[in-house]
C-alpha cells in the first residue's frame, strides 16, 4: 500500500516536472530553430492589466491594481490568475465566446427567440460556473433533444435556416473541430433529428425520428468503426467518438482557440481553419497543449491557468533586435485591440455611467436590468450602435473572424468626439472625490487618471507635461480633457 502511494507520488512528480514549463520549452524550441531571442518578462502593471482583461473582460480598479503592484508576494502572479479565473467575469467571458460560436441571437438568421436565448445563456452559465469539462458540454449539445425553452442545449440544432444533417455537421466541424469541411459519413448519424412546434408561442422541439434506417457500420477514422443499432439515438456513439481523446482534433481545435483568445493570435491562423494547407506555426506547442488539455480532463479553467502562468504569456510586447519581425512564434506579446464589449464596459466602469440595454424586436421585448454590462447581453440581436461600431459580431456566422477587433475611421471619430462618450466623462462619478480632494496636487490627479485608464503610474515627465498643458483649466475640465486623451491612446485601446 505504502509502496503504491510512493510510486504514485513519484509518478506525479515526474509528470509534473515533465509538464511544468512545457509551453515555454515548446515555444523556446521553436524560437531557437528560427534564431530568435524572446523578449523579457513584462512589468507587474502590464501583467495586471493584461490578465484582468483577458480573464474577466474588465479593467482592474485603481485599488485592485495598486494592491497587486505593491504586493511583495513572490507568487502573486499565479495567485492573481487563480483568483480571476474564479470570478463571475470569467463566466461572462466564456458565455460571450461560446455565444459567438453558437450564434446565440433572438432573430434571424438563427431564430432562437428571446426566451430561448435566455435559457441557452443560463445553461451555458451553469456549465462554466460548475466547471463542467468541455467534452461533456459538447456531448450534451450534440445529443440534445427537447424544447428550445426548457432544454436549452437543443438550440444547437435550431441555428440554421436550412436544417439538415449537412448543416448540422458543417457547424460541428467548424465550431468544435476548427475545420471548414467535414467527412460525409458524419451526416449519417444525424438523420433522425426532426422538429416540431408546440402550442406555446415560439416554442419548438428537437425530436428524434426513430424509424430512420441505421447508418450501418461507419468507418469514422483510421481505427474506429461506429455501428449504431436501430431504435437508438445514432448521435450518441458519434458524439462519444467525436469528443474522445482518440479524436485529437476536437481538443486541438479548442486549445488553439483559447490560445488565440489569450495571445491575440492562434497557433493555427485563422483559428478555425485547420487543413493540410494551413499548418501550425509551432506544431510541438499545439500538440503539447492538446495532450495537456486531454490529460487534464478537458478542464477549461486549467487550460487558461496553464497558459496564463507560462513565461510565454508573461513576455512584454517590446521586441528586441532578433524578434522584431516575428508575429507568429510568440517571442513577444502582440498588442491587440480590446473587444467591443470591453471598451464599452470600461467606459461605463470608469465613469460610473451605465447604458440601458433593451430589445424592441422581436417579441417578447427584452429589458435588461440597470447595471447590466454589455458583455452580459448574450443576444446577437440586442445591440447598441457603439457595440456595432467596435465590431461586436451579429452572430450570423460562427467563424472567429466575424468578431472584428480592428480599429477603423468611424471608431476614431467616435472616440475623439462623440457626445455620448464626452457626456459620460463629464459626469464621471468615480472621479468626483478625487477632484475635490484638496490634498491632491494636479500632478497627483494626472497620476490617478493614468492608474484608472492605463493601470500604471504616470512618469514624472507625463505628470508635468499634462499638468502644465491644463494649468489654466478648472479641475473638472482638466480631468475631462485628460480622460478623453487617455481613452484615445494606443495604450488604453490595445491589450498589450
Amino acid at each position: 500500500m505504502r509502496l503504491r502511494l510512493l510510486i504514485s507520488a513519484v509518478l506525479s512528480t515526474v509528470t509534473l516536472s515533465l509538464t511544468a514549463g512545457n509551453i515555454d520549452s515548446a515555444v523556446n524550441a521553436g524560437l531557437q530553430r528560427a534564431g530568435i531571442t524572446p523578449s523579457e518578462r513584462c512589468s507587474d502593471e502590464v501583467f495586471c492589466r493584461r490578465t484582468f482583461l483577458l480573464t474577466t473582460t474588465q479593467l482592474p480598479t485603481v485599488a485592485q491594481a495598486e494592491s497587486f503592484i505593491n504586493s511583495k508576494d513572490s507568487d502573486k502572479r499565479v495567485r492573481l490568475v487563480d483568483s480571476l479565473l474564479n470570478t463571475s467575469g470569467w463566466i461572462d467571458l466564456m458565455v460571450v465566446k461560446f455565444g459567438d460560436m453558437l450564434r446565440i441571437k433572438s432573430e434571424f438568421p438563427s431564430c432562437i427567440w428571446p426566451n430561448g436565448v435566455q435559457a441557452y445563456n443560463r445553461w451555458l452559465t451553469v456549465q462554466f460556473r460548475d466547471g463542467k469539462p468541455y467534452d461533456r458540454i459538447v456531448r450534451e449539445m450534440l445529443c440534445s433533444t427537447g424544447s428550445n425553452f426548457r432544454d436549452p442545449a437543443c438550440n444547437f440544432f435550431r441555428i440554421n435556416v436550412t436544417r439538415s444533417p449537412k448543416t448540422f455537421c458543417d457547424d460541428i466541424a467548424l465550431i468544435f473541430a476548427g475545420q471548414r469541411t467535414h467527412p460525409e459519413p458524419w451526416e449519417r448519424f444525424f438523420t433522425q433529428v426532426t422538429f416540431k412546434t408546440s402550442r406555446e408561442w415560439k416554442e419548438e422541439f428537437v425530436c428524434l425520428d426513430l424509424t430512420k434506417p441505421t447508418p450501418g457500420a461507419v468507418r469514422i477514422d483510421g481505427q474506429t468503426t461506429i455501428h449504431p443499432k436501430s431504435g437508438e439515438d445514432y448521435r450518441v456513439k458519434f458524439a462519444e467518438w467525436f469528443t474522445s481523446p482518440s479524436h485529437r482534433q476536437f481538443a486541438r481545435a479548442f486549445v488553439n482557440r483559447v490560445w488565440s483568445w489569450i495571445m491575440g493570435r492562434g497557433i493555427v491562423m485563422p483559428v478555425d481553419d485547420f487543413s493540410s494547407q494551413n499548418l501550425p506555426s509551432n506544431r510541438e506547442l499545439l500538440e503539447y497543449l492538446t495532450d495537456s488539455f486531454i490529460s487534464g480532463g478537458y478542464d477549461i479553467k486549467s487550460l487558461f491557468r496553464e497558459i496564463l502562468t507560462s513565461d510565454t504569456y508573461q513576455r512584454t510586447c517590446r521586441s528586441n533586435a532578433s524578434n522584431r519581425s516575428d508575429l507568429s512564434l510568440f517571442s513577444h506579446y502582440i498588442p491587440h485591440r480590446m473587444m467591443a464589449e470591453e471598451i464599452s464596459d470600461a467606459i461605463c466602469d470608469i465613469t460610473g455611467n451605465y447604458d440601458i440595454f433593451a430589445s424592441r424586436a422581436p417579441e417578447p421585448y427584452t429589458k435588461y436590468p440597470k447595471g447590466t454590462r454589455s458583455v452580459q447581453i448574450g443576444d446577437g440581436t440586442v445591440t447598441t450602435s457603439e457595440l456595432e461600431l467596435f465590431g461586436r459580431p451579429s452572430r450570423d456566422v460562427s467563424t472567429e473572424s466575424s468578431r472584428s477587433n480592428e480599429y477603423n475611421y468611424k471608431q476614431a471619430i467616435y472616440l475623439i468626439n462623440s457626445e455620448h462618450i464626452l457626456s459620460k466623462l463629464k459626469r464621471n462619478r468615480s472621479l468626483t472625490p478625487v477632484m475635490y480632494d484638496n490634498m491632491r496636487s494636479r500632478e497627483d490627479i494626472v497620476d490617478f487618471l493614468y492608474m484608472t485608464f492605463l493601470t500604471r503610474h504616470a512618469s514624472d515627465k507625463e505628470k508635468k507635461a499634462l499638468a502644465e498643458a491644463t494649468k489654466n483649466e478648472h479641475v473638472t475640465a482638466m480631468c475631462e480633457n485628460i480622460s478623453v486623451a487617455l481613452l484615445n491612446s494606443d495604450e488604453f485601446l490595445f491589450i498589450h
Partner: protein
Amino acid sequence: MKRTIAVLTLICLASTAMAADRYRHDSTPVAKAKAIIFIYLDGGSSQTDTFDPKPEAGRNYCGKYTTPISTNTPGLKVGPRLKRLAKISENFSVIRTMTNNGINAHETAHYITLSGDMSASSIVYPSFCSMISYLKEEDCHTQLFPYITLTAASTRFNEAGFLPSQYKPYDTGGDPADRVFNVDGIFSEHVSKENLLEKQAMIECVNTLSHEIEPTEESEKLHAYQDRAFKLITGDAKDVFNLRAEPDSLRQRYGMTKFGQSCLMARRLVEEGVMAVCVRFTGWDTHKEHFSRMDERLDDLDLGVSALILDLKKRGLLDSTIIVCGGEFGRTPKISFEPPWNGGRGHYGETYSYMVAGGGFKGGVIVGKTDATGEHVVSRPVYPCDLIATMYTLLGIDPNGKILHPTAGYIPLLPSYGKENTSAGMLTELIK
C-alpha cells in the same frame, strides 16, 4: 506625419489591390449611375394606397381612399394622398408586381428585400447598399463614408453580411429637422475648432505606447485614422450636415419633418460624394389605425420624394442618382375590419409596389399588372433580386459576377438571380 501618410497610402493601395480579387465578372456594364438613394419604407407600406390603387374593388379594399389621382403616365393612377408625385409622374416609374413569394415575416422579408437572397442557404449576404459600397470603394472619394443611413439602420439584420464590419452603414443619429442636425462625433454646435486642436495635441502627448514598441499594422492604423478623423472634424467636409446652409424655401418644399429633411440631407450627401444613402422611414407597420397613420405618412412621403426628384433634376444629378422607394413587403389589400385591427392592414409579401427614378431608370413606365383586388400578380412578377440586379447594372456592376466569401470561395453576387421561382429577369423595360 510622414509615416501616417505612408500608412494611409498603404491602406489605399491594399484596398485597390483587393478590389480586383473581391469580385470576378465577365462583363462590366457601363455605369450610368454614380450613387443610390434608398427610401426604405420600413414596416411595409400599403401598395393599394399608393402606387397600385384599386377603387373598383370596393370599400373593403380601398377604405376611405376611394378616388385615386390620374397622372401623366398612361394607365397610372396613384393614391389620393400623393398629389405632388402625381404631377411629376414622367420622372419616375412604378413596379406594381414586386413579390417575395408571400413571405410575411418582417425579419425574413427585410433580409430578402435588402440582400435579394432567397436561397435559404447558410450564407448571410450583405445588403445591396453595403455591397455597392464594397465593390465600388475605389470610385468613392468622400472624406465621409461610402454608405450612410439617415438616421439609424434597422438592427434586424446586420447589413454587412459576410463582408468586413466596416461596410455596415454609418448611422448619423440625430434629427435633420431639429434646429441643428447633430451628427454625433462629427457635427455639433458645441465643439469649437480650437478645442479640437487642443484635444489632438493632448492625444498625441499620451499616445506613447507605439513609440516604445515595434509599430504593428494595427497601431499604425490608430494614428492614421486619428489624423484622418481630426482632418474631417476640424475641416469643411463635415459642413455637409449643416442644413441651415440651404435656403428656407427649399427646406420647406421637402417638408420640415424628419423624413423631408432626411431627403434633403440625402441630396447633400450624394453631392459630397457618398455612394449609398438609405433614408429609413419607419412606422409603416399599420396593423391598426391604418388610415389615420397613412394620411400623415403619405403627406410626408409625397412632399419629400417629389422635392428630392425635382431638386436632383434641377441640379443635373438625377441622371446619375438612383432613387428607389419601397418597403420589405406590402400590406393586405383587403382591410381587416374585425377587432383588434379595426380597419388595419396586415403583412403582404405576395405582391407589392416599388417606385424607381433617376440613375438611368426610365420615367413614366408601369411594370407588371396585378389582379382586380391587387392580391395577385397577373403578369411580369419582379423579385427583389431582379430589382437589385437592375440597379447593379446601372451602377456598372455585373449582376452575374461572383464575389469572394471569407470561407466559401467565389459565390454568386446574387444567388437567387436567374433562378426559377426567385427571379423573373432584369428590368430591361426600365433601363434607358
